[in-house]
């Protein structure tokens, strides 16, 4: 694998860049792998990466029905933060955030992690109280956040309207080391790394069947033939219930469309991410200059990757109220992804009713930020057959036992 660097770029410039090789190999399935991961989204690829890195397991295939990173990983609004309320969540999201800090260097692929700060607005007394609670909890768990006054907020974000007539801003919870990263690059960077050490990434290959022997899975059927495996891990977000069905169990998940949109690019006007939970919308500005906007998820279950226009309306209204200057910008693109929602808005990283099938899903509207941490924890689960400290609270058993990790306060708006 050719190393990426400024020096290499200059050198290649004299060669019309003909010397760059493939970022990842386009592999065909072998007969058998030690571990098969289904789903080449961020979480699947990260799982493969940490399996190789932390446990030396490199006889791995990542199977993808479409193109790598084409699920929610390539459709999200890239907000990264870890100011979660519950201890279990703060632990895994903060692990993830801290891995993001050095991921570009580690992967030798610039994933553009940009800790530009995340501001969560408080627009009702109730929300203010809830954020304070999060703030106190974060402090104890070592997640650096602070409460910010409306005045200070206006200084930090000049385009914000702090005294909107409907929901004046009463304060904000600020996480300075939250931010954004380039979503595609995260997938591509991990793919390049695992491919270089021999893991196979098999795109355009859909898993269509699971062959069980007694209580274990023996092989999977795909559109590129049958493949044997020792262990199998589902990391397919919105499609999780479908795969679980193939394997003969059911999941406590609902799949709904979540949409996002961007404006045409403009020169920099806002340097951080702002989330307005009461009015339901959030916005950041990409490095290209587009205002990246997201809001609420659809109310009905579906797999169509099209959301309803009504949600776009609600989101845009909320954000014009919060940032009146954006009214004259134009919407350039919109898209949707199918997100996998659990009842407590926390993920599932778990063993399953089938002995050697493992599961990573339920990240819903907010799993981009979790990719490295989740991959780390899932790799541990797959390698050992049992969850480590990070993953343990997120088992399927919690739904049976009622041990919910409710983040509906911290995750009131999709992100």
């Amino acid at each position, binding site marked *: 694998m050719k190393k990426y660097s400024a020096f290499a770029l200059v050198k290649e410039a004299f060669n019309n860049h003909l010397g760059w090789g493939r970022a990842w190999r386009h592999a065909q399935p072998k007969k058998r792998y030690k571990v098969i991961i289904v789903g080449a989204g961020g979480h699947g690829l990260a799982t493969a990466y940490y399996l190789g890195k932390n446990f030396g397991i490199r006889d791995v295939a990542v199977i993808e029905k479409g193109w790598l990173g084409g699920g929610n990983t*390539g459709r999200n609004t890239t907000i990264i933060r870890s100011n979660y309320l519950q201890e279990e969540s703060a632990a895994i999201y903060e692990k993830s955030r801290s891995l993001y800090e050095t991921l570009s260097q580690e992967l030798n692929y610039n994933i553009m992690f940009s800790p530009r700060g995340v501001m969560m607005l408080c627009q009702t007394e109730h929300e203010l109280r809830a954020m304070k609670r*999060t703030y106190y909890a974060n402090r104890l768990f070592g997640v650096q956040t602070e409460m910010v006054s409306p005045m200070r907020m206006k200084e930090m974000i000049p385009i914000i309207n702090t005294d909107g007539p409907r929901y004046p801003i009463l304060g904000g919870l600020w996480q300075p080391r939250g931010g954004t990263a380039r979503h595609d690059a995260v997938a591509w960077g991990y793919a390049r790394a695992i491919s270089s050490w021999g893991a196979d990434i098999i795109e355009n290959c859909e898993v269509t069947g699971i062959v069980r022997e007694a209580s274990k899975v023996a092989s999977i059927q795909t559109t590129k033939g049958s493949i044997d495996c020792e262990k199998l891990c589902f990391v397919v977000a919105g499609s999780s219930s479908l795969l679980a069905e193939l394997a003969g169990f059911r999941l406590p998940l609902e799949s709904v469309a979540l949409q996002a949109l961007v404006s045409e690019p403009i020169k920099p006007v806002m340097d951080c991410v702002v989330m307005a939970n009461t009015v339901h919308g959030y916005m950041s500005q990409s*490095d290209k200059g587009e205002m990246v906007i997201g809001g609420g998820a659809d109310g009905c279950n579906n797999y169509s990757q099209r959301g309803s226009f009504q949600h776009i309306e609600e989101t845009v209204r909320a954000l014009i109220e919060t940032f009146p200057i954006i*009214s004259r*910008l134009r919407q350039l693109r919109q898209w949707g992804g199918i997100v996998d929602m659990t009842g407590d808005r926390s993920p599932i990283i778990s063993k399953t009713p089938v002995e050697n099938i493992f599961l990573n899903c339920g990240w819903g509207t907010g799993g981009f930020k979790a990719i490295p941490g989740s991959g780390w924890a899932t790799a541990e689960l797959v390698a050992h057959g049992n969850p480590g400290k990070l993953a343990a609270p997120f088992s399927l058993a919690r739904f049976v036992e009622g041990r919910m990790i409710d983040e509906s306060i911290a995750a009131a708006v999709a992100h």
Partner: protein
Amino acid sequence: MSTRISKAGRLLDRNKRLSFTFNGRNLFGFQGDTLASALLANDQVLVGRSFKYHRPRGFVSSGVDEPNALMSLGHGGNFEPNRSATTVELVDGIEAVSQNHLGSLDWDLGFINNFFAKIFPAGFYYKTFMKPRFAWKHLFEPIIRNAAGLGRAPSLPDEAAYDYFYAHVDILVIGAGMAGLLATYELAKSGLKVTLVEQKHYLGGYALSDDFEVDGVAVPKWLENIEKKLIDSDNVQIKKNFTAIGVHDHGYLIGCENLEVAEKMGRSSIRHRLWRLRTKQIVLATGAIERPLIFAGNDIPGVMLSSAALDFYKLYGVSPGDRTVVVTNNDSAYLTAINLYNAGLSVPVVIDVREESSGDLFESLRSMGIRIEYGKGIASVLGKKRVKAVELCSLTGEGSVQETIECDSVIMSGGWSSAVHLWSHCGGRLIWNDQLDTFLPDASKSPIDENGEDFIAVVGAASGSFWPSEVVQNVKQIVQKIQKKFKTSKVKSSSISIQEIKYGDSNSKYFTPEGASEKLKSKCFVDFQNDVKLSDLRLATQEGYESVEHLKRYTTLGMATDQGKLSNINGLKYLADFLGREINEVGTTTFRPPYTPISLGSIAGEARKGLFKPVRKTTLHLWHEANGASWEPVGDWRRPYAYLKKNETIEQAVSREVTNTRNALGILDASTLGKIIVSGPDAANFLDLMYTNMISTLQVGRCRYGLMCNENGFLFDDGVVVRLAEETFLCHTTTGGADRVYSWMEEWHQTEWWNKRVFIQNVTEQFTQITIAGPKSRLLLEELGGLDVSRVSLKPLDYLEGELAKIKARVFRISFSGELSFEIAVPSQFGLEFWEKCLETGSQFGISPYGTEALHVMRAEKGFIMIGDETDGTVIPQDLNLGWAVSKKKKDFIGKRAQERIFMNDPNRKTLVGLSLQNSSEKIPDGASVIIGGVDQANDNVIGHVTSTYFSPTLDKPIAMALLKDGKNLLGRSIEIPVDSEKILKAIVSEPKFYDAEGNRQND
């Protein structure tokens, strides 16, 4: 140079001169011009700078696909960045400014990037800027951010107004070219109601620039006649400046009507209007979009699409230049060449990548003596800010120059792409047609409506019918189909005779020369705005980014403001070539709304400022306002937090209100509490399922405090349920929960228990509800006169209906303050009258209104819970010592099964306790974490958090409630509350009841 030509310019009214400015320069145009045509007429060929390399750019197109000519218009609250000049209708006084340059448009410092282009190929930023780590955020990224972006952001809030229109239309025809006009005309003849929409400010489409004849007249004249007939027709509505933005499921269409010109002329107060149309049938007549050819220097100002040049000339009387070289793979550019030639302009050569051509246009060219070079291409266009010459080369070679031909403009045609976007928005599939060299709608997988039938028909160029006679045939068929669908009487379609111009075959070549060297490839632009070159596509595919989506994302191809209208197909062709596969196998990306970018303002419509989530107001709202209310938003409402008297702080007011209510008499507007009537033979039974309590045993005339949990067993709403009659219940909810509980009940009724005979009505706004609380409250009611409210007749949790102060009223004896208290509901129209009577009569008892904060303080003193404070989605009633309200007898209720799970009965669960501070008057911080045994690294000592905290005027000390692990066993113990890194408060755990624990006062 580009200039005005007198004999063309169909859309112009040369009697109306309009003045405008570009970068401060005063210029003139005519009524009917676009900003683009007027600029070009003034020889303003350089109009913008590209995104990445800041290369000088001119007009490429004449329509919505323009990638280069983006400008900022207006000032202050009317400032708008990134408008493409080709879509701006000229009006007097426009002030346009070019964008994305450091320094002037002519001398842009950002052009430096161009010199580094070799080190900055596609995706270069993924390969560098990684060291040192902090440099990305602090150095590289800021540089990139500042260089990127196009126009500046508006600095002031938008001054314009926007609104929505809703309409149901039978048939919507999108696009008023020949096909759309004809289809509308034919459909209207059979009596159907048709709406025809067109994104431009004129009708006629491409045919308006064409030269063939219909029924013996030139096509523009013929189109004009049809337009006239349509205007006269009662069942046809025509909308210009109207873009169909997106097609959604079941025939739901979003359209945006651009009223800017009308607004500027004072004819409209609205800038953009968003239409939401429900259609039974859509007819797509959206035409086709011409593709550029790719060759080195194809981005130099002066190189434009052949169709754009034709439009500029025919519609606006503007020449692209004096000497125009034509390069094409099809005959349509011939038409432009002929027109330019006939206008007296010079056309030194037509470079045709085909081996030969035939047809009428070819014959004309030949007879005019215009030189045609077959099998040739352009090696390179020469010039910097304007085309100077082209270098001719053989198509198949590597681009060795055979001849340099001087010129000041180049027009190109790389074929036509049917505009099929709207077809694919809602699930319609596209297939590539090799012969026509475009994607076409796949009729076998069309978008379907709620009945599973297709609702989009495609006509004209959008369907691949490029020739006029085909259009006529194709429209005829579609019209018949639609007539059948709508069961109208058959009306014979008009017989139309076309004197068609015969075109030769086109080919699918898209770049020249075929063996272009790497050096040439790095000057061949595929996506103009984003500066994506052939060399970038090569690099991306070489690096394995070879799915269409990877290619687009890695190179940013098609991600610019023209949304890839000009670039996507060429990119796809490259990919197919590279992979050696058919375009159909390589696939296209799905088109998504919006078809063209629309203002965010139009999406928000009127819903801004006061109309953004309008405040719900109780009948007493104005009274509160007049009497010093300090407001608090609660759900959609605004409630008085406290009533401020002169020179009073909020804290003082709250304290006064609490004390007055505890000692004398308080009055509260409780109208925002949700009120839901559940009635019917199965009402009792249904409510048994909804609430954790047993509701069916409630007697008529009695009230019961009820709890609602979700499927997970967690408490989400509470309120008093009253049995008004055997089969009628009134369910009170929290203020914020009214709508939620109402839909919750409906959802369960409609989806799970649809066989229960119940009716659910939300009557929240039908009643004004007033709480009279305090030791003197009974005295007041007696004084008001009417109902017997004595201790005997109205016991705690009793309910009576009758008259009070001669007003029909319901009286509930319930208390949320801990005082003797009555809630009185009167029909809303009597709300204010009743309120004022209470105040008047109550003045002798010292009555005073109190707000939500006093209410909360009093409920906390009593240890009553608040949904949202003591609950957070993880709390079951048992945690809040409300186990008594959870029926053990009922077989089922929502949440029952969930509450039986292991963890719900874990002794370690957090339970509600009270906290008081040891010798301190400080308020305990809201939401603070509670620890026991000091802060430790592992946080094992965290046992819970503070849920509510107040200063209690009654007890004259701070009180708080908290949810603590194993709280019951902590009673009397001391815990710690870390406030910041230094300060730790110590508090004592108690029962969460601080005042009148026995309830003597409320039960008096």
